[in-house]
């Protein structure tokens, strides 16, 4: 038997214990012969096969393996699983695939041009609609589909990244207003259609047009003065609008539009100044986050009577250090938590916050690598499980602090700390015997990642089933 300090040793141990979840964790890092052995453990029972066929965290190779001899229930799960690789999807379409399976594959993000071309002539309109809505649908497929004249196909095709000017022109000529609105927003929209859209009395179409990043600045500057506030808001949002065009919130009567101004980067100084004094709270909340705010205005916003404006200031990357120290003494905890989260907070601000009892402040300090080591330990022993977890995300947390979290009663905290680079070998191995499958999965994955030779270790395995 290989030594425990190497990947084959770990695999042997997992095969010995027969734990499917730990085996699944190690699977992406194992070599081909070991994988086969692990598959036998992972897929040992019908229940496990069903569970993993549906699991978005299952590795693509395992899903491919399941697809080879999948029955109806497995095939349905694979078709619905966003992690299923193209090879397995293609296999699902062979033989007598049900309408549901064809529909799921047609909508699948891993469906390729060949599958979509085949499904574009499917007898079920639901399947063809799903093809039209697939971002991978090639131009030829879209052209064929729009010839049908189906409203939902047209809506989907009018958004397709591969829909060219010709398709869009055809749809513009025949489609209803909602299809036309999509076309007006499409980057491939032909120039003649853009002109027609601008002249439309339907505000929906002008609004969509105003959001088109392929539109010229002349047309946009006209839309910036549209009588409909929603059209103006869409135009202000458009990244093409910049420089001198990004002005005149003074005369802008709609707070909704001014809020969008306040969100834009590269605003001129006089515009920033006007927005920072805006009577609308939301305008000030947005401008307080804007890195274009100069120091003097930042100080004014940091003293705003509205708590959320001060919080925005505390989160502004351009907020100067002395101001952060002042905000660290803010009466509102959420403002102080905003400072505690900053890795660039000055020493003085951090030390002010160290005795802060508020859970949001504690958790923010737990995530901040600048927090002193002694405080990490206090946070790792905090009565609130959500506060404790913050330390598990902190790369600066020491070996002894993360070991504390490996004993945390809340399973999710153990799952997260299992992935921490400073978790010692012994506590990590201990987690292989954890009562929670999720923890064993995460621990085996981390161990295998550490033991695997560097090239194989680069596979992106994420635990995305725990938000």
């Amino acid at each position, binding site marked *: 038997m290989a030594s425990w300090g190497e990947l084959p040793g770990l695999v042997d141990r997992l095969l010995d214990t027969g734990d499917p979840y730990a085996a699944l964790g190690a699977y992406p890092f194992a070599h081909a012969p070991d994988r086969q052995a692990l598959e036998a453990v992972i897929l040992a029972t*019908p*229940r496990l096969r*069903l*569970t993993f066929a*549906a699991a978005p965290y299952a590795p693509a190779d395992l899903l491919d393996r399941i697809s080879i001899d999948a029955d109806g*229930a497995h095939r*349905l*799960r694979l078709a*619905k699983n966003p992690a299923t690789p193209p090879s397995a999807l293609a296999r699902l379409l062979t033989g007598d695939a049900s309408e549901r399976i064809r529909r799921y594959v047609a909508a699948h993000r891993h469906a390729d041009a060949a599958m979509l071309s085949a499904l574009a002539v499917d007898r079920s309109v639901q399947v063809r609609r799903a093809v039209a809505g697939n971002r991978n649908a090639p131009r030829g497929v879209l052209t064929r589909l729009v010839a049908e004249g189906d409203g*939902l196909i047209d*809506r989907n095709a*009018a*958004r397709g990244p591969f829909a060219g000017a010709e398709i869009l022109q055809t749809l513009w000529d025949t489609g209803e207003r*909602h*299809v036309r*609105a*999509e076309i007006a927003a499409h980057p491939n929209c032909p120039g003649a259609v853009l002109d027609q859209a601008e002249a439309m009395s339907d505000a*929906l179409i002008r609004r*969509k047009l105003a959001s088109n990043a392929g539109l010229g600045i002349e047309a946009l500057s006209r839309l910036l003065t549209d009588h409909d506030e929603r059209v103006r808001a869409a135009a202000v949002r458009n990244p093409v609008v910049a420089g001198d065009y990004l002005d005149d919130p003074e005369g802008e009567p709609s707070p909704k539009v001014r809020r969008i101004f306040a969100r834009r980067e590269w605003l001129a100084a006089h515009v920033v100044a006007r927005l920072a004094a805006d009577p609308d709270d939301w305008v000030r909340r947005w401008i307080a986050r804007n890195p274009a705010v100069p120091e003097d205005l930042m100080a004014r916003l940091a003293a705003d009577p509205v708590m959320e404006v001060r919080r925005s200031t505390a989160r502004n990357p351009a907020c100067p250090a002395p101001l952060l120290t002042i905000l660290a003494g803010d009466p509102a905890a959420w403002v102080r938590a905003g400072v505690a989260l900053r890795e660039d907070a000055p020493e003085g601000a951090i030390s002010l916050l160290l005795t802060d009892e508020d859970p949001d402040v504690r958790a923010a300090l737990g995530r901040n690598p600048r927090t002193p080591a002694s405080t990490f330990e206090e946070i790792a022993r905090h009565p609130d*499980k959500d506060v404790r977890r913050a330390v598990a995300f902190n790369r600066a947390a020491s070996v002894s602090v993360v070991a504390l979290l490996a*004993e945390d*009663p*809340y*399973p999710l905290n153990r799952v997260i700390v299992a992935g921490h680079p400073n978790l010692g070998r012994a506590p990590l191995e201990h987690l292989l015997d*954890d*009562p929670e499958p999720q923890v064993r999965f995460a621990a085996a994955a981390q161990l295998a990642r550490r033991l695997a030779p560097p090239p194989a270790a680069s596979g992106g395995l994420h635990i995305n089933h725990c938000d």
Partner: protein
Amino acid sequence: MKILVAVKQVSILDDEFEMRDDGRGVDADFFEKDLNEFDHFAVEEALLIKEAAGEGAEVVVVTVGDDEADDALRTALAKGAERGIRVWDDSLAEVDSIAIAKVLAKVVEREAPDMVFTGAQSADFGHATTGMALAGLLGWPHAAVVSKLDFVPGAATATLHRELEGGLEEIMTIQCPAVLSIQLGINQPRYASLRGIRQAKQKPVEELDLDALGLGGGAVTSASRVRRMYAPEKGQAEIIEGTVAEQAARLAEIIKELRGI
């Protein structure tokens, strides 16, 4: 002082599942099992009372279920309950909540606790029946959907809040012992420490069959029978189709309608 908590191992069905051939149940491959969410709160409430009472106080957890249900008992034992009781007989496989209550009533008679807690309902079937039916069979005072409880062991009455529709609560007193069904949110259920989980493996779980409870010979009868079980015709979610503008317009309509705007 003893509190008995009746718990249930619930079945969590996959999004996709297949029915059994007899059309009266779901194929067992399509389930996960777990301790009923409401029961975490019932167990916690019992533990809090026990811990405040000090020496000699005891929390006993009971379930009716096959050996898979042991996990539910071990979860409660790991949190701090003293011992468990599991009642099973193959004849109980398809009985309803009222029949389960008949079994539990015999356990309560044996254990003579100062209080009985159940979850307000089960997360799988939501009958909200077992606990109150148990009270009826015992002739004990009872209250359902308890969201706050003030009970000092030994006292003749307890004060509680019942959570009613719309967040309104009724405050009432109740004579003890009583059967209370416990609502979510009454407390913050703890997580078992890893040490607690290890210790739970050593704690006693008594296994009883119906004869041991004097319920042999078909004494446990249901108040209903499953005639058939089936998947609803269409999925629950109504998918809102159309362009983003159309979807948002429909969503706005739904919000305005439900909010009475």
